[in-house]
């Protein structure tokens, strides 16, 4: 075994070993947690058979327990609002930054990037104080949570869309202008259609970030009715929850993965053309 590990000509096998062990260590605990969501019994540590009871069962399940239902619903509502607001805002900001003439562009760019490096607790405290003292009319609760989520997802949207804008380049807009399209048409007939893959990708990212968000959502929560899945996980983790907790976490995970996969597929359908074009242009 030592020799197998120490082959001087082969690639270092111990690296491969470490990687495999790491990946297992990284994923297996979550896999186990998901597994126990399907446990027939109430234990989260002893396997008692396979069952869907914690998902759809008559009582105590994600589908029927009001607390879990409420959390799931609230999480989805926030996610939808977040995407609906952050995506257009972010796309507009990305376009605006790209065409920025005159001074100030660099500053705005920096401010836009700041939320990405700000620790969540700093943002949480800042937003909490904002809604307590500056906008007490809004106060804490769903609107505040939504606003908070949009504030930090915005930067992700801008970065993703901006990247795509840069790789598209100014050519298509110039061509459109050359052919007679006024600036308004250049945007709607040419730039936006080309941006669709990036818009979809950033919307999916915003959605996933919103679902998984914890700190900001918790800080801006008003009362028990504004609990999200993350908050529920946090509150119940050290208690003696039933596998329903695992179940709701699994549901949230599935929603996230489904969204990302869907976005990826749609992105591929829209963007694949260009990759094929590069190949096609080589042959006559």
């Amino acid at each position: 075994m030592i020799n197998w590990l120490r082959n001087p000509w082969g690639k270092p096998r111990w690296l491969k070993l470490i990687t495999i062990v790491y990946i297992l260590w990284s994923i297996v605990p979550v896999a186990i947690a998901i597994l126990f969501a399907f446990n027939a019994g109430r234990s989260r540590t002893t396997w008692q058979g396979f069952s869907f009871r914690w998902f759809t069962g008559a009582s105590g399940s994600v589908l029927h327990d009001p607390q879990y239902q409420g959390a799931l619903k609230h999480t989805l509502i926030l996610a939808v609002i977040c995407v609906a607001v952050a995506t257009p805002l972010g796309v507009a900001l990305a376009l605006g930054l790209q065409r920025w003439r005159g001074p100030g562009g660099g500053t705005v760019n920096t401010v836009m990037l700041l939320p990405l490096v700000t620790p969540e607790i700093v943002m949480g405290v800042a937003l909490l104080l904002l809604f307590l003292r500056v906008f007490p009319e809004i106060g804490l609760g769903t609107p505040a949570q939504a606003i908070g989520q949009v504030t930090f997802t915005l930067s992700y949207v801008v970065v993703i869309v901006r990247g795509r804008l840069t790789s598209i380049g100014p050519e298509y807009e110039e061509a459109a202008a050359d052919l007679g399209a006024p600036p308004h048409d250049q945007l709607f007939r040419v730039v936006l259609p080309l941006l669709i893959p990036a818009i979809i990708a950033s919307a999916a990212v915003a959605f996933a970030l919103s679902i998984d968000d914890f700190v900001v959502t918790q800080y801006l929560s008003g009362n028990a009715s504004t609990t999200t899945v993350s908050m529920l996980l946090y509150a119940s983790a050290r208690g003696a929850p039933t596998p329903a907790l695992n179940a709701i976490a699994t549901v949230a995970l599935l929603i996230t993965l489904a969204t990302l996969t869907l976005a990826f597929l749609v992105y591929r359908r829209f963007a694949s053309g260009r990759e094929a074009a590069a190949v096609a242009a080589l042959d006559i």
Partner: protein
Amino acid sequence: MAFPGVAWLAIFFLVAFYAVVCVAFGNEDTLSQPVPFWNPLHWNAGYVLQVLGNYWHRGPYLTVSIRTIEFVALSIGLCLLIGYPVAYYTARHAGRWKGVVLLLLIVPFWINYLMRMLAWINLLAPNGWGTRMLHDIGIERVFIWLGLLSARGGWLDGQPSAVILAFVYGYIPFLILPLVVALDRIDQRQIDAARDLGASPFSAFVRVTLPLSKVGILAGCVLVALPMFGDYYTPDLVSASTKTSLIGNQIDEFTRQGSEKVTGAVLTLVLSAFLLLLMFYYLRTTRQATAVAEE
């Protein structure tokens, strides 16, 4: 066209942060609610001085801060120890498995952080699989002997080691990915040249690969350190004891849970200032590194 976005950021980010500053330099009213002083000329440095005084006199704030730095440093160290080989393998030796491995490395990003912690708590609960397994293999005994675990099965009772390990588990994916990118960029030919000149594989690694990946390592560490310094939920979940209280916990206690919001705001400023210093140091080192590389 950028205006709505800019306005949004200005109000909900810049003003929000300004609110923190104004509360920190503000006062409390009779109901212990914070009163921000908006005009810098009216700022009341009382609470700020109080906190700074606490630091100066080695009060609890200082203890917690130092503990935070220790925990973060240890965690990042461990992350590097485990993560670097994994990143190295992925970037340079994975061959046709590279896509699959990358996908597996990215998967944790999309799993709710709390769910991942939940999974661990589940395993390390008094009769969880993890606890039983660690006991059976004997690792538990080693930990107790090393003083890292205070009692059998007591993983979640407030062990610094548990918090550090939780940090490592939680944040290591965020370190591995930038490392993979950095290691990917290194030109194989430079390593080949070193080998050609007589260096052993290990020596080539230490003298060529490692220095070239320094910038990437630094970037990854900063990327992970920033959120880690503000993390309060991980110690809360895994330990729930004041023995492992970090600055994030303090801030959380004062602002969200308790009614000392002004002090909480001050501590937030202290944390932010510290992190700004960290960023400056990072930016300066990278600028120097790129300047040297360009020579």
